[in-house]
């Protein structure tokens, strides 16, 4: 039972932390719980489908289908997270012209929740598919009773979700004036970490060179498999032994998103702001 709980916890953790950040970033948005719940539900359905067709997904592209699929899922999430930040920046500017806070725009329900619901769904899909395959394997081996598997799975899910909850309530303690800039930074790092992970999958599929296999090795300090390593990996994409290409993707993602945020925030001239205040 404990082994089941530990593995389910490990898989659930990353998705739970992402959901915690998304919920904090959408504080006060009308209908956000429905959106996030739909994202989770869609992710669970997707996870089961991916698990059932695991063999079929793996075979294309000379057996590298799984890597390409994972990289694609990650890149979609990266672009959604980037789009979220750019949207926040653009509306931050419009709101400051019309003397409203971003918080009000967000609370007004204008924020594109579907973008973040997709991010939640994809995170649940990726991690959930592994949980489904693992639990199916445990059940099929017949050494554990159904009750013990269910108890272990539920315990892992509960502890993993609790971690996401802790992160969420921690972020809620940030004064509302700063909370969106903090979640903006978290989402930026989340996106960069996912892009680096996608690069690692493309290296594994032999579609990208490593440009240097091991840039540094900090596994003596925080190992990939440790709890701290899992946390840092989920939040900022920490790897103990990154390749150069991973760092390149990490940095490029930050640069591209920040540049786009700057571009939409650039003053366009007087006619841009006036329609909002004119009534």
């Amino acid at each position, binding site marked *: 039972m404990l082994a089941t709980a530990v593995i389910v916890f490990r898989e659930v953790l990353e998705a739970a932390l992402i959901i915690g950040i998304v919920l904090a970033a959408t504080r006060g948005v009308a209908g956000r719980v429905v959106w996030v719940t739909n994202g989770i539900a869609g992710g669970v359905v997707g996870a089961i489908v991916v698990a059932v067709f695991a063999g079929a997904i793996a075979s294309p592209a000379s057996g590298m289908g799984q890597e390409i699929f994972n990289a694609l899922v990650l890149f979609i999430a990266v672009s959604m997270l980037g789009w979220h930040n750019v949207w926040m920046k653009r509306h931050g500017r419009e709101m400051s012209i019309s003397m409203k806070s971003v918080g009000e725009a967000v609370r007004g329900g204008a924020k594109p929740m579907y973008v973040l619901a997709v991010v939640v769904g994809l995170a649940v899909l990726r991690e959930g598919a592994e949980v489904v395959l693992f639990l199916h*394997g445990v059940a099929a081996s017949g050494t554990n009773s159904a009750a013990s598997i269910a108890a272990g799975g539920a315990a892992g899910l509960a502890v993993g979700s609790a971690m996401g909850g802790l992160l969420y309530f921690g972020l809620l303690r940030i004064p509302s004036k700063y909370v969106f800039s903090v979640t903006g930074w978290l989402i930026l790092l989340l996106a960069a970490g996912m892009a680096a992970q996608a690069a690692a999958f493309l290296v594994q599929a*032999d579609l990208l060179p490593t440009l240097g296999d091991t840039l540094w090795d900090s596994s003596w300090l925080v190992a990939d498999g440790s709890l701290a390593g899992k946390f840092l990996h989920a939040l900022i994409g920490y790897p103990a032994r990154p390749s150069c290409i991973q760092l390149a993707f990490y940095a490029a993602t930050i*640069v591209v998103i920040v540049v786009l945020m700057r571009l939409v925030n650039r003053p366009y001239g007087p006619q841009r702001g006036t329609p909002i205040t004119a009534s």
Partner: protein
Amino acid sequence: MKISRRLSAVLVALWLAGGLPAAYAQGNDSFTLTLKDHKFQPEELQVPAGKKFKLVVKNLDPTAEEFESHDLKREKVIAGNSEATLSIGPLKAGTYRFVGEYNEKTAKGRIVAK
């Protein structure tokens, strides 16, 4: 836009510069691990250091397994009764541990690069 375009051009150039020679230099060495009753056979696999190789993992168990190695930076789900290929290396001489994540107690082994 200009900066991101230039950046993507640099990335594409790096991809071509690094990827093409790597593709040509790629050896055809292939090694096979077999997974049965949640155990890897052989548990220790000798490979040449400094050369790329393909690792074929045959899963003879009816259930899926995830081949995982933090040392090798590889993770791949292998469906039950099927096989998967991973591209690995070039490795520095040394020992690289791997496990089957779903059955870590029994499914473990190492690749030794010499």
